[in-house]
């Protein structure tokens, strides 16, 4: 998934849309943007903020963290998506995901609810969602009052970004 080009990626997204019934989304805020991610992708959510800074690391890398004996790279999801940095405060959390056999932490501003999404009501992503490349999303889920961008974690974390 990570290294596919845009077209096949989109195709894959569509396939996902057709093939699956519902999906449980862990929702979270990056700044003001509400995003969601397949909850099966999420390893854990924590508020460990005792990070070690890594000088010279890419700007989106917040630092590294000891997660029970494993070194986890924490990524500022805001920066990574091209938004403003996520501010570390009381509500910010790390979502630890397993991508390519490696644990990576995504720093988000706030955690939201778990939402059950029906793929029928998921629409393919537009080219741009609130300033974020559409390619980072698997689709957009419409709730009564708002939209949830369903994030494709592997794609966001792919090295060539």
């Amino acid at each position, binding site marked *: 998934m990570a290294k596919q080009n845009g077209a096949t990626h989109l195709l894959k997204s569509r396939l996902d849309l057709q093939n699956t019934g519902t999906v449980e989304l862990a929702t979270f805020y990056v700044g003001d943007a509400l995003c969601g991610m397949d909850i099966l992708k999420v390893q854990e959510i924590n508020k460990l903020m*005792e*990070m*070690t*800074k*890594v*000088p*010279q*690391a*890419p700007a*989106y*890398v917040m630092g*590294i*963290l*000891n997660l029970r*004996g*494993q*070194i*986890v*790279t924490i*990524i500022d999801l805001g920066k990574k998506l091209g938004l403003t940095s996520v501010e570390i405060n009381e509500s910010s959390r790390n979502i630890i995901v397993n991508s*390519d056999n*490696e*644990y*990576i932490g995504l720093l988000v501003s706030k955690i939201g609810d778990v939402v059950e999404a029906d793929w029928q009501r998921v629409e393919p992503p537009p080219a741009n969602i609130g300033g974020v490349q559409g390619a980072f999303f698997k689709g957009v889920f419409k709730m009564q009052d708002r939209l949830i961008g369903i994030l494709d974690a592997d794609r966001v*974390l792919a*090295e060539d970004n």
Partner: protein
Amino acid sequence: MTIQDDETLRMYLEESLEHLSDIENDFLTIEENGANINEDLVNKVYRAAHSIKGGAGFMGLTNIKDLTHEMENILGKIRGREIIPTPATVNVLLRAADTLKLLMKDILNSNEVDISAHVSALQTVLKADSTPNKAPKAGGASKTIMTKAPKASQPVAAEFGEDDRLTIAFPDGQAGLTLDTKVLRAVFEQGKCVYLVKMDIETHVHAKDKTCRAVLEEMEQTGVIVGANFVLQSISDLDVAWAPGIPVMVFLFATILKPADINVLFEIEDEYLLEVRSDLQLYNLQGSPTATDEILRDPAQLSGYIEKEMPDLDSPAWSATDDAMEEQTPKRAFNPVDAKSTQDAVTDKKSVKLEHETSLRVHVRLLDQLMTLAGELVLSRNQLLQSMGSSDTRGSEVAGQRIDLITSELQEAIMLTRMQSIGNVFNKFPRVVRDLAGTLGKQVELSLEGKDVELDKTIIEAIGDPLTHLVRNAVDHGIEKPDVRKKSGKAPTGHIFLKAYHEAGQVNIEISDDGKGLDGHKLAAKAIEKGLISEDQAKLMSAREKNNLIFLPGFSTAETVTDVSGRGVGMDVVKTNLDQLGGLIDIESVTGKGTTIHIKLPLTLAIIPCQIVVTGGERYAIPQVNLEELLRIPAEQVSKRIERVGNANVVRLRGNLLPLIRLTDIIGVAPRYKDPGTGEEKDDRRKAIADRRSRKSPLLSKDDMVENPADEIAPETLPERSEGRRYHANSALNIVVVSTGDMKYGLVVDNLHDSEEIVVKPLGRDLKKCKGYAGATIMGDGRVALILDVSNLAKMAGLSSIEGSARAAEVAQAEHEIHRTNRDKQSLLVFRSGENEQFAAPLGLVERIEKIKRSDIEHVGGKRVIKYRNGSLPLFSIDEVATVQPLSDQNNLLGIVFMVGGREIGLLAIGPVDALEANLNIDGSTLRQTGIMGSTIINDRTTLLVDIVEIVETLNPQWFKAPEIRKDESGNSTTILFAEDSSFFRNQVKGSMEKEGFKVIEAEDGIIAWNLLQKNAKSISLVVTDIEMPNMDGFALTRKIKEDPSFSHLPIIALTTLAGEEDIARGRQVGIDDYQIKLDRERLIKSIHEFLKAA
């Protein structure tokens, strides 16, 4: 070829390779013993060959079997003293063993290799004594489905009788087959399902438009045919219409397919398919036992061996013969020394990957120890939990300490399981040396020491190639041929000594030979020629550094490409390999006497001791292997000891200049320091390391920044913190002196912490591009610290090993240091005139050396000359002037060409000539005579120093113009102030200047010179000074003179023994006008004249 499951094959391989490695050394011993046959040893080898052959027979490895069979035959004859093991015989055997190894490397394809040459060579050795019973088999052999019944020529598993056969039949008793118990047992041990299949050829095969061959092929693809009621041949030999010639085929078929799925394959009625379980009962596919109970004739015996059922192996099924299934290598007692890494053994063309490194032999004792420790750990944990639950601090403390202790022990024990003896690597060298020496026509003896030294498995695996290269090098380039050795007075047999030992938590390996050694000059010349270093750099290098040049990439000294050196692997690769392991390599060599290579290796790579440092508020770990020392420069010395060379900072460390890198600069974080008063961490604003002025603190008022004389007072005595803080000890510089390969530099960090043992953890993919880190580790408080990659940091900072200016400066400084310690070290040319008198002349004066035949010397006009480049070169010998032994009457003479009085003259001499650097402790009086300026001891011999100018002057006074006496305005002769601490040189140089008509004022050091200069301010018109002098050196004296307006016009000539670039640059900086080499009086005088003329 018939190969069964890879587990068995792997075991066989491991065992066989072990046998083979022993065989090799045993063959060598057998060869050494010659006719004096050690029967035990031969027996041992015989048994090894026999075991290999046995296994190969079972495995269907025909090539291996054939080869070992022939070896066995020869060994049998040797044992029976029918064949004397000559080197030729042993050679054949060794080569056969090599081939065996090769075959085993690619065992799945081994039968396709052509081994006929080896087999016939072995047979030739046997001298047709016995007719070879196995023809060499070359190529072509392909998979056989089955060959009937084990030949059982080898007693591989002696505890089983040959005839433990059993018959399995369908309940109706009609259709059945017979097979070997062992085969069935092996199949069960692999956890496969075994089925008894009956196929009516008419209804099940032909009616379905299939052929028997197709059925067999299909079965072969999903499992193994363990037995059948007919004789099976190789499937490729079967033609399409082949039929077994019986109406009903019965198979015993082993597969991973479960009973529910098995019939997908056969598509036959269920009653034709029965499952054989490990209890040796027959079950139908629904899992109920069949009516008959005792179908298996000998169930008790079989079931005895089947104790456990393993989970399904999902390895591809190999078709196999029944005999091929048999080999179940009995597990031997564990022995870590025996443990073999066979990682390079197989690259498989046949799709199955045999991974050999997956198992490791560990001594049972060690396992027991681990168990004990694990038990203790659990107990301590319980203790800790309990005391924590009851808030018993004392108890937790005790338990904590206990856990600390156990953890260390556990760590050690676990590490031990990875340890292997270096003998695994060493043992192959006797053979390497023997073969290579044989090829090169050399006699070499190899001694091994410290085979028991243990190293981490990964290191053992990685060190093999570099070591082999070094050993081969020693034989190829180090040890000379016997006749050469004899000529240089050595025993014809060369010695190579390989030694491993523990020292300071590291493993040391030494490879020394008593060969010809390295020639530093040659190496340097070569390096210059290849453009690896500049001539200036070469001049400044110490002998040791020159030797280490061979580690530079692109360097190879072999003049002719030999078998050995032509392999494209250079010493640089050796060095790179060792660097990767965190090892160090150093070479030490005495020309003509031998070479010793020292290697230092860490014991393990997973857990490494590190120095923890703090910079920018974060902790970093620096591996201890890279750590040389820790340096703390007190604040008040910072400006004195830190210098700026170009745009790099250097620190003066015991006379050497050490380039400095600020960690904060490379990784781009703000340096911090701890405020001594409040303990707060604050940003350090110093721009440059040595710059104290700009280190303003925002907390300080402007007034505080004004230079305050109180600053010089020790901070402790200052009540006001704000005034004293600038020089407080905490503004001191903390420097970690690190080395990587041949580079050494100082890393400036904010703070130093303890040394800790850390566990290396890899960094995530987002950080792979950060080259400055080797990984990360988790500290005691649970936070993460980065591990610094010292060599990459240097690269990032732009430091490089040889070409870097900082390094050049260091080399220069090192040379400088040598000058300082070995006062007045001179480069000399040592030669002889008579047989037993040694002479020396300053090398700087020698233009070149010519070979001269006595018969070519002409006697013209009472002088000796030789025709040379369309002119005549006048020749002299020392005995014409001085009372020394007469020139040797041999025909081959040497003409050492000097430039004297503007012309070339040749001094007749004989060899051996040698250029060397000597610490001249010259006695200028005892043996002084015309033409001899003094004597010194070189190589334990009294050596006369030739005064070449004096010789020529004595013989040809007319060549020299009458000294042009320079006078100043008042009519006095020109006065020169001459500062030099060595009385010999003082007299020498003074003499030559006085001869030119100058008046000379001598001074023993800079201070005396300075005082004399002030006293004789008016008369002195030029200063000649030595650089190295006590009290005040030449640089300081020059600076003083140039800074004084009344003297600044005086030209200053510095005299040195060897002018280094760095010295010259430094000299020019302080105002030295010219450099001259001591004892080159002509140039000195010329220079003096030039300066005086200009003035």
